[in-house]
């Protein structure tokens, strides 16, 4: 243990540096790749326009949304000490989608600026509190998954209900948007709308490193190390609600990023939740940006949405996790 930690310290900088470099590369790829080749002859200032108004918001949102999802996944797993915690699985994304849909269809988002992300993060916070209340910290993976299933089922059912009741002629297509998120044709105003909240949430969650490290020893030990458990919980709930809520408000539900990324990176972080936080933030950004690039590369053949792609990647991972847990239980 001590030897692992001694090794982990110098590795931390190396790991985060490598992840940051990869994230920067993925960001550039996302700017460079799209249906239109920016190198070829384009009329007037079309190339500049495409770059500024379409590629840039898409890449910025890809990075920020990915970072939000990866980081909140790591924070939830660390705080709940449960490997299956993830924003979309525990209903936080569903709650955010419900909040966003309600503000849109009650006409609030058109009337008052910022109500869309605010509605989404209130929804996310309520869902989060409901899951914590249902599952608690001692429930184990099954309780958490059941609580998450309950909360997210209610949230998505209410999203569908709100869309149906609104007599929206596009209700079914819009349901697909909210349940299978998308980064396509997002705009700079949407970035300005969501980015401040996502950044605030990311900032809050990154402050949790010491508390989550201490929590691995149990709540009593953490308390004796001077960690305020109540304050930690408030920060996890607020940080997740801010980042995932605002992300969902502009992209819909993108699942599994918060599950896959922390698991993939945990072996490299010496199983320290504190180091896993920034690593998962960068890893989430990398994963979502690359998934979005892949989407645009294969797009000529299939009608694929990014939420579908992350689910395709995530579901087998989930199966692997189940098998691993089973073999651990057997062993």
């Amino acid at each position, binding site marked *: 243990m001590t030897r692992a930690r001694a090794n982990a310290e110098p590795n931390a900088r190396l790991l985060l540096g490598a992840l940051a470099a990869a994230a920067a590369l993925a960001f550039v790829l996302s700017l460079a790749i*799209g*249906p*239109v080749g920016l190198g070829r002859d*384009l*009329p*007037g200032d*079309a190339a500049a*326009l*495409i770059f500024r*108004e*379409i*590629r840039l918001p898409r890449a910025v949102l890809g990075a920020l949304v990915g970072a939000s999802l990866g980081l909140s996944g790591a924070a939830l797993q660390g705080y709940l000490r449960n490997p299956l915690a993830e924003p979309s699985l525990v209903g936080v994304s569903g709650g955010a989608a419900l909040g*966003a849909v309600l503000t*849109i*269809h009650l*006409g609030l*988002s*058109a009337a008052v600026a910022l109500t869309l992300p605010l509605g989404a993060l209130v929804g996310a916070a309520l869902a989060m509190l409901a899951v914590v209340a249902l599952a608690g910290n001692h429930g184990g993976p099954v309780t958490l998954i059941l609580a998450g299933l309950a909360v997210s089922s209610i949230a998505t059912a209410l999203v569908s209900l709100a869309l149906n009741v609104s*007599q*929206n*002629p*596009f209700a079914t*297509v*819009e349901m697909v*948007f*909210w349940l299978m998120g998308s980064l*396509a*044709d*997002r*705009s*700079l*105003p*949407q970035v300005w709308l969501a980015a401040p909240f996502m950044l605030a949430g990311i900032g809050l969650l990154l402050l949790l490193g010491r508390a989550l490290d201490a929590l691995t020893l149990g709540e009593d030990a953490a308390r004796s190390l001077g960690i305020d458990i109540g304050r930690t919980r408030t920060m996890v709930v607020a940080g997740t609600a801010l980042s995932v809520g605002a992300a969902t408000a502009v992209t*819909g539900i993108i699942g599994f990023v918060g599950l896959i990324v922390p698991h993939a990176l945990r072996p490299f972080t010496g199983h320290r939740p504190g180091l896993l936080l920034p690593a998962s933030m960068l890893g989430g950004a990398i994963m979502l940006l690359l998934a979005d690039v892949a989407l645009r590369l294969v*797009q*000529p053949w299939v*009608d694929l949405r990014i939420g579908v792609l992350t689910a395709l990647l995530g579901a087998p991972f989930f199966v692997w996790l189940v098998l691993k847990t089973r073999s651990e239980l057997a062993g």
Partner: protein
Amino acid sequence: MLRRSLAIIGLLAAAAFWITPGRAADAPRRIVSLDLCTDQLLVELVPRERIAAVTHLAADPTVSAIPEKARGILVTHGGAEDVLRLDPDLILAGPFGVRGTVDLLQRLGRRVVIVPQPQELAGVRAAVQTVAEAVGEPAKGAALIADFDRRLAALGRRGDGPQPTAVIYQIGGSVSGPGSLADAALAAGGFRNAATGYRLTRGGQVPLELLLASPPDLLVLSSAPGEYRTVLADNLRHPAIAILRREHASIELPWRHWLCGTPHIVDAVEKLAAARAGIEARAR
């Protein structure tokens, strides 16, 4: 003006109807329509006391060309039970979406007429004729078709220059492709559909950046950017669309004009022809 002439034609047709007795006796008098497009034809061909119900969309001004004429008519939600409750002697349906209901109603011995969805302007005449004959109003149908043809013929000659391009850009980035009624309206208005020039990567959806890279001569929006406050319509509010509209010709051509193959498609064609005249005047 148009409406008045239509009304006069309608009155004449009604008079002709009264003079020829015998038809009235067996003409259906409790007609139910299960499709937005048959709703509109029905309402224009038959006095409302003979209409038992239409769909809720008929009175929706965003998709129906005749919302005020349909207002107040009983609405059916299209379930077989709901339809049977009205004891209809004729049921009009479109080719899509209500297959199960139609099968059930036919098995129960109800008369169902399925009106094909026109994909070109000639099909509009056929659709009017089908409904007019089914409801026992062939004279009114002929009058509608005559008016339709007169307006199409009055569009005037287009210039000899190369055909400008246009694209009908809709909520969610969808565009109307070749073989659709909207495509036929574009052609009749004197435009070449630019949708064929884009690699349609996601079904009928065009990524916004393709639109920016090769903009059409005329950008046609299927709804005003502020009309639908849903996330799906965010693409119409995208700053890039606003920039395109500043630099290129652009019109809004609401769905109600071209969603259905009714004679109202000519409204769309007239708007497009006017836009084409504008583009040609500027080019000169």
